[in-house]
């Protein structure tokens, strides 16, 4: 069972908060949620919306076609009316607004809407859209007189109308919540938990109650047993908590969308407790978070901190990573265990700051001059983002090299409500590798040539150690002689071979579905969820493919990939970029090329219904390259 719900409104009108209130209330009734936030690069006024899926088991994606659309402005209706299947809740105040009058709407969108309505023989007001939906699509439309409710709120709460007006979004969620037929009290609880200030708790509670009085339940969802602890986890927060749990003690960053939320979260939680395993005593620890002057500084500060033996990281997005390339090269040359959490947004240049993309895979794999080992991992869901927070820190210290953790924006700004136990915290381990502490060696061969390429690491302050971005000898002193160059160069690269040997290939790939199928889908990052949900729906239609999700791109799990892809008729590469970059990496490492592609680069996340159609187009019609266009 899956129900898709959407709320839209101007940026700054509380769309995000209300979607969370709604989601938490639905979750309190025993359901699970996956939701995604779409917004412009703007502070106030532009159209933003939240699309979420409700299900009796954890959903992993959103859908393009939604059951319920709730709104309190005109633009939401114009932008999304073609996506609604069941119900539209709208404000009577905007009935006469014409598409051409919505100033915040981009001309391209207005043009499409006007053209569409005219072709269907309708005018261009909200009322016309309503009529169209009623008559031609069988959509139930529910008008709400927001002003009437708000006046009552002002009256009952004894506040001015301008204050009560801030509960507009709550009316929209309450009306749609009532349609589900779930316990009203859960929504009220969710509201009072969100608004700590009494006056706002009050106006929003009254608004919700008044809105719910007007609506008759439509879906009559049963309350499900809710006996396990559930948490709400978005990608930024998941990675942040994963890093904190994994022992992160230093994070430097420069503000950038969609990465900063992670650093801000860590700073808000910078005082953490560590528990003495013997006495159980709690001790306060500090995570230093520095807002640097730019990304050049951000990565270098993290590298500096890492040299003291501290687990250190930075978080950024494409434009910031471009600046970090210099510092990453130094970290590669000096074998610094530094982690870069790389939130991918649309490029090139400023690109689309708030929209998703997977176009930076090749960049992450190749950035920097010269050759040096790097480890690149990619999360495909929120639980993985949590685990990878620790995993990246472990890999960095174990192999003494930069680790890039890729999280696309569609994962960063979406959230899952999942059972807490799925985090599997009991399985998380900290591995530090060859750290030498309290060494009596006055001078350490920090870059000792070893069999596995990994040398002893002594934190600054515990022994004399030397670092330089120049080629160096085993002590870290500049050395240009040719024989040393050959050996030292190879020693660094060897670490990648060591990592390749030590890290089981099975942990670098996730395999789902029917492994005997002739159809293999390969993907990475956020599309995973949409593909898995689509696969579930495709089963009824007799299409039962295998899905291979790549978790680590460097070192690449080439043997396992060869084995898994052996004899497949279809190798469908699904990802959010133009070139099919993961497919390119596959080809480079194994010689195997994808046979088909399902690609998307419009900046919106992959959605299960469009992915489902895409897979069908490939498997049933043999389309070589399907491009997805979903999302306003």
């Amino acid at each position: 069972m899956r129900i898709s719900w959407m709320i839209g409104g101007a940026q700054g009108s509380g769309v995000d908060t209300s979607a969370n209130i709604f989601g938490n209330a639905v979750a309190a009734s025993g359901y699970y949620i996956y939701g995604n936030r779409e917004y412009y690069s703007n502070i106030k006024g532009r159209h933003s919306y939240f699309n979420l899926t409700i299900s009796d088991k954890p959903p992993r994606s959103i859908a393009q076609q939604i059951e319920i659309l709730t709104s309190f402005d005109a633009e939401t209706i114009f932008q999304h009316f073609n996506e609604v299947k069941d119900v539209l809740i709208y404000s009577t105040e905007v009935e006469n607004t014409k598409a051409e009058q919505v100033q915040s709407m981009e001309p391209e969108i207005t043009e499409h809407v006007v053209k569409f309505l005219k072709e269907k023989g309708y005018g261009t007001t909200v009322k016309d859209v309503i009529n169209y939906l009623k008559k031609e699509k069988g959509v139930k439309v529910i008008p709400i007189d927001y002003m009437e409710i708000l006046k009552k709120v002002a009256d009952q709460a004894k506040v001015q109308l301008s204050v009560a007006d801030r509960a507009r979004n709550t009316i929209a969620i309450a009306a749609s919540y009532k349609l589900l037929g779930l316990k009203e009290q859960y929504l009220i609880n969710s509201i009072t938990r969100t608004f700590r200030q009494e006056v706002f708790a009050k106006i929003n509670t009254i608004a919700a109650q008044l809105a719910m009085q007007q609506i008759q339940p439509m879906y009559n969802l049963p309350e499900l047993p809710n006996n396990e602890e559930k948490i709400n986890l978005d990608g930024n927060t998941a990675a942040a908590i994963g890093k904190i749990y994994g022992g992160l003690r230093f994070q430097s960053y420069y503000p950038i969308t969609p990465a900063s939320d992670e650093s801000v979260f860590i700073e808000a939680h910078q005082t953490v407790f560590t528990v003495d395993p013997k006495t159980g005593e709690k001790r306060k620890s500090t995570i230093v978070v520095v807002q640097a002057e730019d990304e050049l500084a951000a990565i270098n500060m993290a590298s500096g901190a890492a040299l003291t033996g501290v687990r250190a990281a930075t978080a950024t997005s494409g434009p910031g990573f471009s600046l970090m390339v210099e510092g990453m090269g130094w970290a590669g040359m000096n074998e610094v265990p530094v982690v870069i959490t790389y939130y991918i947004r649309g490029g090139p240049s400023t690109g689309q700051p708030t929209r998703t993309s997977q176009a930076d895979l090749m960049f992450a794999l190749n950035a920097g001059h010269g050759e040096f080992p790097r480890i690149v991992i990619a999360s495909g869901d929120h639980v993985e983002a949590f685990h990878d927070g620790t995993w990246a820190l472990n890999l960095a210290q174990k192999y003494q090299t930069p680790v890039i953790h890729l999280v696309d924006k569609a994962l960063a700004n979406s959230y899952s409500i999942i059972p807490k136990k799925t985090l599997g915290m009991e399985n998380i381990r900290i591995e530090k590798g060859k750290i030498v502490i309290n060494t009596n060696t006055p001078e350490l061969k920090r870059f000792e040539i070893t069999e596995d390429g990994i040398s002893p690491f002594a934190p600054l302050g515990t022994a004399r150690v030397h670092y330089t971005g120049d080629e160096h000898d085993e002590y870290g002193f500049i050395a240009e002689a040719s024989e040393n160059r050959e050996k030292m160069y190879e020693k660094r690269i060897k670490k990648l071979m060591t990592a390749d040997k030590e890290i089981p290939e099975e942990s670098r790939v996730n395999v789902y579905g029917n492994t005997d199928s002739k159809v293999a889908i390969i993907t990475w990052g956020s599309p995973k969820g949409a593909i898995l949900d689509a696969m579930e729906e495709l089963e009824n239609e007799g299409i039962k493919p295998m899905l291979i999700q790549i978790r680590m791109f460097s070192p690449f799990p080439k043997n396992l990939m060869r084995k898994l892809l052996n004899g497949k008729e279809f190798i469908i590469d699904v990802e959010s970029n133009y070139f099919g970059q993961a497919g390119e990496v596959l080809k480079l490492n194994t010689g195997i090329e994808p046979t088909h592609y399902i690609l998307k680069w419009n900046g919106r996340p992959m959605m299960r219904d469009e992915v489902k159609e895409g897979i069908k187009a490939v498997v049933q019609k043999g389309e070589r390259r399907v491009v997805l266009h979903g999302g306003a």
Partner: protein
Amino acid sequence: MFKKEKGGWFYMAGLKVEWNDWCPGCGNFGILSAEQQAIQELGLDPKKVVLVSGIGCSGKIPHFIRLPASGVHTLHGRALTFAIGIKLANPSLEVIVNGGDGDQLGIGVGHFVSAGRRNVDLTVIVHNNGVYGLTKGQASPTLKLGVKTKSLPKPNINSDINPIALAISSGYTFVARGYAYDVKHLKEIIKKAIKHKGLAMIDVLQPCPTYNDIHTKEYYDKRVYKLDEDPSWDPIVKKPEEMDDKMSKAILKSMEWGDRIPIGIFYQNELVSTYEQRIAERSPSYLDNPPAHDVIEFEGKPTTDVEDILKERRVT
């Protein structure tokens, strides 16, 4: 005795460098000696001293120092950023930054200015020779407009940066100038800079015998004079209300250039909180249990408790 296994040119057991690759007569020798003596006279444990440097001739200082101090030879212009990371992760280390004027006031000037806002307890030494030595003598940010040093095809087309005024206006809390050939005087300034609680900057006038034929030893020898020889010169801020006045006087003094060039301490203010103190105000355990000393695991199990954080995410 030359010990190859100790890293090429380096000789560590004694206190004598057999050879290093700076040009004969380079001002860097004086700066290196002064730095070394300052560390020794202050009785610092060399293991706890980290020399962080940028790129250029000055950047090689950690390779040439004759003390068993650690060295982090970083990127062009970025030494300060690494130094801040090192110091904040482990505040018990003594971190000294070395870089040229091109390094710190050209490519790294953004970091130089931004560091002032933080006032991390570091010492920054600017090797100021007016040229980019290692790339054969192009004009550096401290070279004055219209000046033509040896290898410039035409006179300098840019105006110069005043390192003292820039440091003061950026928020550095100890700002001084030394002269590479007055090692004794420079050493005393470095000692004070290291002892200073906060971000210290020393602008060191440094002849480049190979590429700067204007600002030579002879040029400086007859011009430099010591500020502390004037009994009325008092650069130390003792009360908050003195700050503006002392800052202005120091900046005014930094404009003096020509027949007489002042060296010594221009400005010192320990009333401004250090970044370390600011972190400790937010997270009181910071100085007792800084990141570098924290125990994050026990037998591979994380010791960090994230239950409270997860509780915030709980849905009920």
